[in-house]
């Protein structure tokens, strides 16, 4: 397994550095048309009429799609709740909702024709915030309960209650008693903002109907789930829907599940030619975002720092359509306790419809929402009891093997060791460095867990040709995380072949075996395990042939670089073995690998596949005159079991650290009471740039071999995003400025400093 554990070069690096990696937007199909979308200018309204006469007559226009064109279909989709029509049907529920689509010979012609569509709206009262959506007599975003989708994984869905489309709760122990008997109770109300994932490549899809078959090229993370939703929507068998995934220009969850594919397939069906929809940034911002949230939490502890109980209630704003909101909500609920030993818990999280753009997955969802809240309460408990903040964690953190949630997977990580590493790397225990007048410094750490792995179903095929070259077919999408490189390393590690002789290409559902999804940090662990098994299958065949040819018992044969050797050192190369097996220079060895739920239904309740560790430390400096925060040091811990490629692991943590810094310090989508997104460009929605890089950023890789994946690996890449904002919040509180609203903009921090009369 020489290839495993090495920081081998990225397989796609040189192609990308030459500008030659093909993204969906780079593809030009013969006869391809360009799509443009008419977005609703109002957040909530009945549609009285849609007149497309002028648009249809405009130069270059081939087709205009409205809800009327979908009368032969059941036009609703949604993997969690089947609540979303392909285009607005009867009413619009958010400002920007697609109402009609134009396909034309050029993008300019399509854009011009959109302006000619005449829609009459009868406006309805608007619920564009959690507060208005949860009020008595609030306008209902959906009047009727939507049917469950096919991939929510949440068991029986309860009925909707007003605008609440899903609630998740659990309780254990005597909660009232825990609070009554506590030496200290910390409580507060907290606000988390809506955040834009900003994968730099916006959502892009090409649809082409040919001979009754639909082909989609799409920037999607979950091609097999897209295939299923599209097949159901258009009444096609799965094998007549083909999804091809080129390189993705980032994903971060924004391209999970189904996004622009239904609409693109529908306009292409009407146009009878291939159509491309390429979102502008302002369109992707209303395609999906991170849930904004309010949360009330209480934490109770005994005088010696032993935690007694926690109660929390959270409301997550999922916008006008559920998307992945129910799953995000459940994961937020699971993250609320934090990885501690609790005698009593009472946790509820609600998923709430509002008249805003839909919210779905974004890296470390749920955990990012809750970890900073729980961890800041823990720090406050420690402060009040005069207990060291690291010590209170040591005392209460779960140990490996302890139950995290009833019936679920026990803890599979050394959290105390992990948080101690993060603390040391931000200078825990060192005397605070001198800071200038009017500036204060502080340090913080945070610990959390993220239920990872999603539904554990992945298949893979490994093929070895008569020249010894290897192709891996696996459905993981290359988003930039390095999946193709890691999958090649896993196969090479099993076969003992050079990693450069293993090829991994993008997913084409016509040929690539099923993989549930690329998300929940599952690829290396779950899809990687399928690849390992498929490669082992090929290795078994090689050993079988070698045993016959070398006339040696299989147990005395060992894989060596590019071949198999017997105890005496006689070696046959892979190429020789494949040819020997088939008796000529042809044939191939095909290995299959499968991962499926073991001994259960595979439901999330029995999971997760593994607990992703979310641990970080931070040191910050705050200018008390301006409220500006400088992040001086960050430290993350990638507790990965076994790093298949340590350099790629570190890059995951570094990328997540900067996203965490943006989420904590300045990223926030502003929605007006009328439902309009006010900062819908990168001019007004700022993401971290080079100059935001902390002066010191360390990532410790922990390899305890305790993962369920290949070679003891478990996933990474999300945990740091949940952990870094929490560490920054705690560091700021350590500097004297406790905050309960994110992001920590200078104005908010300055106002808090004035309230606290410090500085």
């Amino acid at each position, binding site marked *: 397994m020489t290839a495993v554990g090495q920081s081998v070069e990225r397989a796609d690096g040189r192609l*990308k550095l030459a*500008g030659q990696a093909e993204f969906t*937007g780079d593809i030009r199909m013969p006869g391809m048309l360009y799509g443009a979308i008419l977005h609703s200018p109002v957040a909530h309204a009945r549609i009285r009429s849609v007149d497309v006469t002028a648009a249809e007559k405009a130069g270059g226009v081939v087709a205009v799609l409205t809800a009327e064109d979908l009368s032969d279909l059941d036009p609703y989709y949604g993997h969690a709740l089947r609540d979303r029509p392909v285009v607005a049907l009867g009413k619009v529920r958010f400002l920007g909702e697609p109402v009609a689509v134009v396909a034309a010979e050029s993008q300019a012609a399509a854009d011009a024709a959109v302006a000619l569509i005449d829609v009459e709206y009868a406006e309805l009262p608007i619920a564009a915030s959690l507060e208005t959506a949860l009020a008595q007599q609030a306008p209902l975003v959906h009047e009727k309960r939507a049917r469950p989708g096919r991939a929510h994984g949440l068991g029986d869905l309860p009925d909707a209650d007003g605008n609440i489309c899903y609630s998740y709760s659990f309780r254990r122990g005597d909660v009232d008693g825990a609070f009554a008997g506590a030496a200290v109770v910390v409580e507060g109300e907290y606000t988390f903002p809506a955040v834009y994932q900003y994968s730099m490549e*916006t959502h892009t899809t090409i649809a082409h109907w040919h001979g009754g078959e639909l082909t989609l090229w799409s920037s999607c993370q979950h091609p097999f789930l897209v295939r299923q939703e599209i097949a159901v929507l258009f009444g096609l068998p799965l094998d007549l829907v083909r999804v091809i995934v080129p390189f993705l220009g*980032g994903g971060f969850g924004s391209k999970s599940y189904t996004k622009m594919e239904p609409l693109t397939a529908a306009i292409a069906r009407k146009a009878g030619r291939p159509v491309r929809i390429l979102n502008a940034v302002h369109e992707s911002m209303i395609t999906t975002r991170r849930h904004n949230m309010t949360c009330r939490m209480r934490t109770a502890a005994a005088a010696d720092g032993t935690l007694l109980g926690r109660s929390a209630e959270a409301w997550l704003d999922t916008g006008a359509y559920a998307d992945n909101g129910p799953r995000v909500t459940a994961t937020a609920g699971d993250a609320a306790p934090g990885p501690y030993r609790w005698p009593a818990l009472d946790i509820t999280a609600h998923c709430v419809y509002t008249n805003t753009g839909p919210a779905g997955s974004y890296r470390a969802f749920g955990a990012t929402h809750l970890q900073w809240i729980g961890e800041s309460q823990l720090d406050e408990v420690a402060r009040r009891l005069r207990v060291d903040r690291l010590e209170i964690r040591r005392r209460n953190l779960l140990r490996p093997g302890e139950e995290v949630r009833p019936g679920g997977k026990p803890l599979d990580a050394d959290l105390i060791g992990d948080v101690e590493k993060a603390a040391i790397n931000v200078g825990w225990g060192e005397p605070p460095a001198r800071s200038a007048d009017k500036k204060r410094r502080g340090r913080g750490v945070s610990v959390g867990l993220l239920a990872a792995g999603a539904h554990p179903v992945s298949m893979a095929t490994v093929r070895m040709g008569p020249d010894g070259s290897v192709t891996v077919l696996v459905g993981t999408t290359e988003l930039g995380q390095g999946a193709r490189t890691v999958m090649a390393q896993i196969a090479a590690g099993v076969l003992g072949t050079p990693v450069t002789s293993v090829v991994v290409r993008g997913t084409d559902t016509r040929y690539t075996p099923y993989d549930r999804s690329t998300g929940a940090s599952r690829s290396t662990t779950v899809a990687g395990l399928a690849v390992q098994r498929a490669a082992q299958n090929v290795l078994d065949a090689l050993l079988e042939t070698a045993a016959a040819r070398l006339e040696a018992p299989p147990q005395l044969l060992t894989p060596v670089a590019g071949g198999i050797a017997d105890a005496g050192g006689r070696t046959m190369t892979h190429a020789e073995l494949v040819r020997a097996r088939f008796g000529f220079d042809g044939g191939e060895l095909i290995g299959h690998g499968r991962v499926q739920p073991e001994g259960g239904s595979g439901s999330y309740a029995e999971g997760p596949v593994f607990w992703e560790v979310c641990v970080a430390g931070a040191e910050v400096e705050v200018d008390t005159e301006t409220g500006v925060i400088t992040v001086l040091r960050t430290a993350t811990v990638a507790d990965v079991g076994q790093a298949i490629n340590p350099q790629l692991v570190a*890059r995951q943590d*570094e990328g997540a650290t900067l*996203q965490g810094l943006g989420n904590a310090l300045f990223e926030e989508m502003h929605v007006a009471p009328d439902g309009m997104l006010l900062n819908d460009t*990168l001019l007004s929605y700022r993401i971290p740039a*080079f100059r935001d890089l902390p002066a010191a950023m360390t990532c410790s890789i922990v390899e305890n071999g305790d993962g369920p994946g290949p070679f003891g690996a478990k996933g990474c890449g999300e945990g740091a995003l949940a952990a870094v904002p929490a560490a920054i919040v705690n560091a700021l509180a350590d500097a004297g400025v406790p905050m309960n609203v994110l992001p920590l903009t200078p104005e908010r921090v300055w106002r808090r400093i004035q309230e606290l009369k410090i500085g």
Partner: protein
Amino acid sequence: MTETVRTTINGEKVVAEVPAELLLLDFLRDRLGLTGAKQSCEVQVCGVCTVLVDGDPVSSCCFLAADVDGREVETIEGLVGSDFHRRAVEAFMRHAAVQCGFCTAGMLLTAKALASRGTGWDRAGIAEAMSGNLCRCTGYRSILDSLAELLGATS
């Protein structure tokens, strides 16, 4: 209304009739098939559409094709094969400074413009000069490490 553009793109003379409002990015991608420059923010913030015009980095999403008349354009396709590109590739590969790759070409072209202004760049100077190129994947440090090697005093 169209205009005649006589320009040099990656060393080759190009003469084209273009609509007055045609953006350089669309000209490169749609008319010339040079898809290395990408489209993202469309407001000169993200840098994925960066190309060099007479050696200066510009956001081709906000630059008219007509305005390259009489000027030289260099894209990633033209940079490939140069000594600078070879050194940049080795540095970026060593530091694993490429993830999704959507920002990569723009990063290299801005870096080329910095290199043409001399060596001896320190990290803070590079970070400041590169702030018009965003990356959402890497967290920047690996790119900064690569660029410090390429543009630093010791290179």
